[in-house]
């Protein structure tokens, strides 16, 4: 059976209705002339049905977990439970303003407080804040905390360097730079941190070592205790990037591994939907050293009441307006409550089982770098495809034609033509086998077909270079281009 995505010849929203003259909006008494809008907003007037049809059609030209297996490595694309969606839309959740008096928001504060208690146990770190809006936001806040910590110790002028492995997510160095640190990458050995290289790199300039464990090669950093000792002996802090926590839920945790501070992505491990690129929800968890610096407010329980506590003199302050992404915290709480102790442990076991099974099957097609035992994800190298004149990118596009999403490609860069594959615990063996079958068809297809893919989607391969070279970023740009094309070419005057 061949997969076909819907292909609507759907115009842009503004092309659904003719442009009308735009009279100035009503005048509001007191608004000064210099601030009054002279021409109404340029946006189409459409019927509700026209709008609903437009976006329904667009939705049909989009992959989601609900439509397709989504083996995007490091993104942990697990099923987003429907019950969480139901609960997040209750009046008692959605219709709550962050500036409501605490007495009217006791349930919301208790949910946050309870989720924070669960996350303390999951991370093994004693204090948790849910203020961060996403993983990278959590990284950034954590590094601001590290900065404040060293400032208090009078070491900030000296500890200016953040170390990271060359397998680190791009957000790690970017967050470190935003927090005012210089970054230095440590070369990996066999896909893991090279302990000797790390020992040579740490110094009294080291503020922090940022590590993902399991890392982006899907490998557990088995030297983690020695890594922690090395960083701490040099006076640095150890940061846990929780993007890959799914693989170790209930097996180990950042606290036991020696980390001082961590972020988690609720939209990965705790199954909150990623919304086509957000919202996310970041968790910040800190050990004793860094906990006083967590953002304010903190949610505390005093007697039987829940309160927002602003009395944290060492806190870095706010990193976002309001408290956090409560709508997602609630979904994550429903996930945690459903799983409980045994369920959370089972998540890791099944996710790692799926990953190793798939790694073994797909390892028959393309080489797998590094050691065979992997955690939540694994890497393949598409390098041998080059002999047939195709690349990893072509294979990824060809997989789309099978109705499955493509893996993460060309990351991490230490593996040539890499594919990073993760199908977490909510995928059945049948789905895994279907993915293997799809991979088999894709990899055996002709080079012509591979280079020509995708052909079964709403569009064929996109010219991304052109998009970057002549950026057209809005309706305004499209109008300007049309005007340019339609403008009469000036005729040169006769000599």
């Amino acid at each position, binding site marked *: 059976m061949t997969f076909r995505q819907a292909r609507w010849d759907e115009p842009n929203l503004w092309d659904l209705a003719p442009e009308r003259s735009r009279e100035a909006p009503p005048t509001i008494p007191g608004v000064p002339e210099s601030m009054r809008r002279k021409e109404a907003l340029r946006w189409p007037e459409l019927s509700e049905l026209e709008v609903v049809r437009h976006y329904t059609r667009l*939705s049909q030209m989009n992959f989601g977990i609900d439509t397709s297996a989504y083996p995007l490595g490091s993104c942990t694309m697990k099923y987003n439970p429907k019950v969480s969606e139901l609960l997040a839309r209750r009046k008692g959740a959605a219709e709550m303003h962050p500036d409501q*008096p605490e007495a009217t928001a006791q349930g919301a504060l208790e949910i946050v407080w309870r989720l924070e208690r669960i996350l303390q146990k999951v991370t093994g770190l004693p204090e948790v804040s849910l203020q961060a809006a996403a993983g990278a936001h959590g990284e950034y806040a954590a590094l601001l905390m590290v900065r404040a910590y060293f400032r208090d110790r009078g070491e900030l002028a000296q500890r200016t360097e953040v170390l990271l492995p060359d397998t680190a997510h791009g957000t790690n160095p970017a967050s470190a730079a935003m927090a005012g640190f210089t970054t230095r990458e440590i070369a990996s050995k066999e896909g893991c941190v090279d302990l000797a290289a790390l020992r040579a790199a740490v110094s009294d300039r080291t503020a922090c070592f940022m590590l993902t464990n399991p890392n982006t090669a899907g490998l557990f950093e088995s030297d983690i205790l020695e890594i922690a000792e090395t960083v701490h002996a040099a006076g640095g802090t150890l940061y846990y990037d929780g993007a890959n926590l799914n693989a170790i839920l209930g097996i*180990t945790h950042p606290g036991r591994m020696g980390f001082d501070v961590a972020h988690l992505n609720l939209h990965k491990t705790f199954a909150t939907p990623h*919304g086509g690129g957000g919202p996310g929800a970041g968790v910040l968890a800190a050990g004793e050293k860094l906990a006083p610096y967590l953002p304010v407010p903190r949610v505390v329980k005093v007697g039987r009441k829940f309160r*927002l506590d602003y009395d944290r003199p060492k806190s870095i302050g706010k990193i976002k307006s309001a408290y956090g992404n409560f709508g997602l915290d609630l979904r994550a709480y*429903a996930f945690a409550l459903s799983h409980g102790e045994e369920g959370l442990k089972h998540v890791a076991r099944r996710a790692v089982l799926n990953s190793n099974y798939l790694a073994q099957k797909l390892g028959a097609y393309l080489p797998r770098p590094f050691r065979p035992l992997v955690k939540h994800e694994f890497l393949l190298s598409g390098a041998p495809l080059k002999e047939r004149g195709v690349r990893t990118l072509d294979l990824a596009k060809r997989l789309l034609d099978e109705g499955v999403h493509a893996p993460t490609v060309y990351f991490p860069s230490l593996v040539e033509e890499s594919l990073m594959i993760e199908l977490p615990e909510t995928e059945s063996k049948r789905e895994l086998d279907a993915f293997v079958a799809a991979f088999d068809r894709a990899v055996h297809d002709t080079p012509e077909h591979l280079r020509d893919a995708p052909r079964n989607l709403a569009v064929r391969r996109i010219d991304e270079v052109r998009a970057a070279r002549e950026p057209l970023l809005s309706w305004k740009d499209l109008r300007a281009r049309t005007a340019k094309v339609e403008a009469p070419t000036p005729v040169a005057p006769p000599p």
Partner: protein
Amino acid sequence: MPRWIPDEPGEEAALLDALGIRSTDELFADVPKKARIGRLGVGAGREEPQVVAEIDKLLDRNKPLSKFANFLGGRIAARYAPAAVDAIVARGEFYTAYTPYQPEASQGMLRTLFEFQSLWVELSGMDLANASLYDGATASGEALLLCRRVHEGRRFLIPASLPWEEKSVLANYASGPGLEIGEIPYDERTGRLDLGFVRAEVGKGDVFGVLADVPNGFGHLDEGVPELKSILGEVPLVVVADPLALTVLEPPGNYGADVVVGEGQGFGIAPSFGGPLLGLFGCRKEHARSAPGRIVGASVDVDGSPAFALTLQTREQHIRRSRATSNICTNQSLMALAFVVYASVVGPRGLAALQTSLAEKARTLASALGSIDGLAAPRFEAPYLGDFTIELQRGDAAAFLDRLRRRKILGGHPLRDPRPGAVPSPERLLVSATEAVGEREILKYAKAARAAVDARGGAP
């Protein structure tokens, strides 16, 4: 065990068999014994009906906005969203998708984000917009960093009247690169920014950007804001603007803003106790390669059909790493969808009519509160739309709000910084005329406010 993890009889055994192992324990042989943990201690799992019952019990301890006559607003608005918005947002193709790394499989979301960018361009008068940031406050933070990339200097000026939370977020964004924030004083009568101060500071040559907000932190309009650019010259101007206000106000791009940011939650996104929100970010074309976050561009596919993709990615963390313009990976795509669906369903005339009606209610509210002795309402002699500031001349704001709450009124929120050790400020409240209140609620508020002011000093 939730049924979300497949457990067909024999399924796990078949997976284990294929790997030649007897237990999943063997898959964790690489985790050193000393790093293992015992029990988490999070309690047993529950079935779906119990989860629903448990969470509903907790949610019942909340008192949602609809239980009150609600005058809470500000940057986060309590506004009605037509049911069509959630019907679209709740489509699994949208909300269960990841960032559109494979554009051919993600045309729906990419096109939506392109339309969203276009809408913010039209509202703000900027040349381009990104595909969203976390919220309005972090969008301001990113704007600060953009200014520093395009202009030399160490100081960034912000209004002293900016909400304390935004000041705190900005202080964090400035702290990494070691930049300083200066506060522009305002006139005590009108709340207007002291343009003389701005001129003097900019004259010293160390200012790399200036931020102003429309409406300002007091909810009022400052006639000086459109004049700022003439004082700043080459120094970039950031304007924080409310999207609904921009349906009746001049786009800041028309008076020289270089960056326009804002909080987009009020367009179709439930307040949800403060998140998820939506950061709006637009800037001038010359700053495109310094802009933060994801940006969607129009292109074509190999057949020449219109197609959309993430673009200008060489600015971003996954390519540029420590030299990226921002660490943004996740943005708020789904909220951007809600924003553009809301605006399109309500339509430009509907939006302007809504803002006009809120402004009319706010005037009614101001005149009802204005006659109360001991209450300055509005506190500032300046125009306003739906929000304004009141000041208690005696008693404190918390006790005042408490008394109102007992009469089922949410009377606004205090403007002071709640952190111990913060500079003491007058007892001011931001009040908002929301869609849900009518004349009856306004009169009720006025009556309760009069009683609350008179009752000062007594036990609440």
